[in-house]
């Protein structure tokens, strides 16, 4: 019951493994497992049913034609269907106004304000200067929350503490953006239930007043069967242009994504995870599908690395590695670079085949702290030349970093092993290694 969707599907495929062909009998069992897996992942009941019926049909149809292993075939069919269900191609934001206006809507606690901050940060990192408009006039301190986030990321926030009229605030914010020359306005609104008529009327009025280019519905990735109802109701009132999936961290299964996409037929434009302002990704249906299937998301990982890795620094490191002059200071730098990329566990989850294995593992960025402290307690000389570290120096480093001499020794041992490994790798033909996989 606690297994993630991909794990369950892997289990389902196992029942097919070793069997020569897909037959009515083994399909029934697998399809049942897939359906259950989807339900456990909060995919809507009806959608799960339609989905599995379709998969079954496809699988039985192909049975006669092919001699591929049933597991592989099923994986492919399920993956294809999932990708299709999640919505073919990636869709970005369509921004054309002056200023372009993005309206953010959603239930209470779905993560609208945090997402608004992240989106503003996203634009800012691309060199555009957005303006945030604080239109949640109901929840205590909501405006305050947006202001704090704005300050954190260095983006202006338009707010009127005394004004209780979100339509007015939104309009004035846009006028302000025109005056200041902000190309984009992000309008954060109060959380509301989709059956609260008065509140839905209000957001409809906001929409009419500001004519947004994009209307994004923020949905908590942990949402259950109700995701469909909520999305439908919001879409009926606002005619949304896209969906944002929030809190897609760690073990969140994200079945809601499948349901929403297939019911409202609107693209999922972003996925958001964690509370760091950088933790926002463009949604890729194909990657999400393979992630659900446990096939890993290596493309996202590579892109993340490209975004955050300093090219020059990387080239310098490669040279050092080649000469086997990689030292503790470089190691420290690397740790810090990795940390910039986001949560280690999330990153590892993107590597094919690793996803399920680290589920219960305690790795996160904090686990680097001890190592960093030890290295930072060394002098530059010691870092470049760890052999200098004698008993005296080691106990000084241990004291300085709040660890023990054993910890220092352990780190040094690991570092030596790493160096040995690099030496060995340098001797190998790298090209052969990379090409040998296919």
């Amino acid at each position, binding site marked *: *019951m*606690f297994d993630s969707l991909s794990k369950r599907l892997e289990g389902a495929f196992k029942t097919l493994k070793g069997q020569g062909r897909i037959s009515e009998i083994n399909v029934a069992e697998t399809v049942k497992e897939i359906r*259950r897996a989807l*339900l*456990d*992942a*909060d995919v*809507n*009941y009806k959608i799960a049913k339609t989905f599995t019926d379709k998969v079954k049909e496809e699988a039985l149809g192909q049975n006669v034609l092919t001699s591929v292993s049933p597991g592989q075939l099923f994986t492919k069919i399920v993956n294809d269907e999932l990708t299709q269900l999640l919505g073919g191609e990636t869709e970005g934001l369509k921004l054309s106004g002056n200023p372009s206006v993005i309206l953010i809507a959603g*239930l*209470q*606690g*779905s*993560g609208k304000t945090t997402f608004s901050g992240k989106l503003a940060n996203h634009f800012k990192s691309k060199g555009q200067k957005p303006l945030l408009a604080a239109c949640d006039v*109901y*929840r*205590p*301190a*909501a405006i*305050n*929350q*947006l*202001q*704090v*986030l704005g300050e*954190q990321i260095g983006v202006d926030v338009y707010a009127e503490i005394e004004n209780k009229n979100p339509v007015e605030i939104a309009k004035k914010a846009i006028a302000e953006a025109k005056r200041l020359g902000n190309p984009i306005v992000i309008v954060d609104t109060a959380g509301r*239930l*989709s*059956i609260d008529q008065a509140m839905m009327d209000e957001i409809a009025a906001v929409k009419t007043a500001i004519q947004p280019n994009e209307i994004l519905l923020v949905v*908590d990735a*942990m*949402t*259950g*069967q*109700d*995701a469909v*109802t*909520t999305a439908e*109701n919001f879409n009926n009132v606002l005619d949304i242009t896209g969906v944002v999936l929030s*809190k897609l*961290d*760690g*073990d*969140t*299964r994200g*079945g*809601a994504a499948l349901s929403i996409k297939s019911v409202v037929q609107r693209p999922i434009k972003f996925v958001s995870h964690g*509370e760091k302002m950088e933790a926002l990704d463009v949604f890729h249906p194909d990657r999400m599908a393979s992630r659900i299937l446990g096939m890993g998301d290596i493309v996202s990982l590579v892109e993340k690395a490209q975004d955050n890795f300093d090219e020059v620094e990387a080239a310098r490191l490669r040279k050092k590695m080649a000469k086997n002059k990689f030292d503790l200071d470089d190691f420290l730098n690397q740790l810090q670079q990795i940390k910039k990329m986001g949560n280690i*566990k999330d990153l590892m989850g993107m590597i094919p085949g690793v996803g399920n294995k680290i589920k219960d593992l*305690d790795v*996160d960025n*904090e686990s680097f702290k001890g190592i960093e402290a030890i290295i930072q307690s060394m002098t530059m000389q010691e870092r470049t030349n760890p052999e200098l570290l004698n008993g005296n120096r080691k106990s000084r480093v241990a004291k300085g970093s709040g660890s023990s001499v054993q910890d220092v020794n352990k780190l040094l041992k690991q570092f030596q092993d790493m160096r040995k490994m690099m030496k060995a790798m340098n001797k190998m033909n790298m090209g052969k290694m990379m090409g040998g996989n296919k």
Partner: protein
Amino acid sequence: MGIFDFLKKKKDHESKAIQEKQSSPEANLESGLEKTKESIFGKLGKAIIGKTNVDSSFLDELEEILITSDVGVETTIKIIDRFEARVKRDKYLKADELNTFLKEEITAILDENKSPHFIDFSLAGAAKPYVILVVGVNGVGKTTTIGKLAYNFAQHGKKVVLGAADTFRAAAVDQLEIWSQRTGAIFISKGMNTDPAAVAYEATVAGVDQEADVIIIDTAGRLHNKVNLMNELGKIKRVIQKKIPEAPQEVVLVLDASTGQNAFEQAKQFTAATEVNTLALTKLDGTAKGGVVIGISDQFKIPVKYIGVGERKEDLQLFDAAQYVSTLFNA
């Protein structure tokens, strides 16, 4: 052809009569009522008419209703098993009785874990101060629930201390402070980005010194898979116990009714970190049913105690299993 014609005519005539009946005012009221009753029990009733036992289409219907209320596959199977066993044991006569069986079985699952020493807002027989630690993932409504708890206790003439140990989320301290002003509770804070355990300790000390009846500690929302944050909860609990060894009497896990099966994982991880002994189900005024609490309550043996049904300070109720089960089936 005669006999078929006759049957057809009669049918036409009947349907006409029904149409006429529906347009009269009384009929409108009746059909309105019927519509509310055309819930699961209505559907289930239809499914069993003229049948001597519960058949698969009836069970399919039941399965769909339970699953779409987020009850989850495992618990749905359990409920159906219990229901079938009951039907076998106690022969039923009418659909009504089947409905009653079903309601009773689900209510029983929810009530099994209710503590015999149930402490409501009057705090009769409770330790003083009674310490409540509130935990949960981001955005489930912890702070709002605390505000409403404070209001309810205050309405019963209790002296309440609120500890702002969510020092992480932007403006969380301000949000709680506004609630303390609304409810007249004593507010303890050390500001943003301070040590939450220190805030919890200070709130506990203040509660003891000022002879408060209740101390409620707010914590930052944390996703249950973040190990360090979960460990922090353990620390908060330990510092409270430094001052009051038997506290916190209540560790409330707040669950959002719209959350699906991930709530199981939340319950598992939070229970491991802080020994949750109470559940609060929020946002039940929406379209979500929060059926996942049935399974959680059953599997983790933790009772649901509070439900949130709106954003106003009055919108918190003590959980009533029978009533909840009724609404579950009245879609």
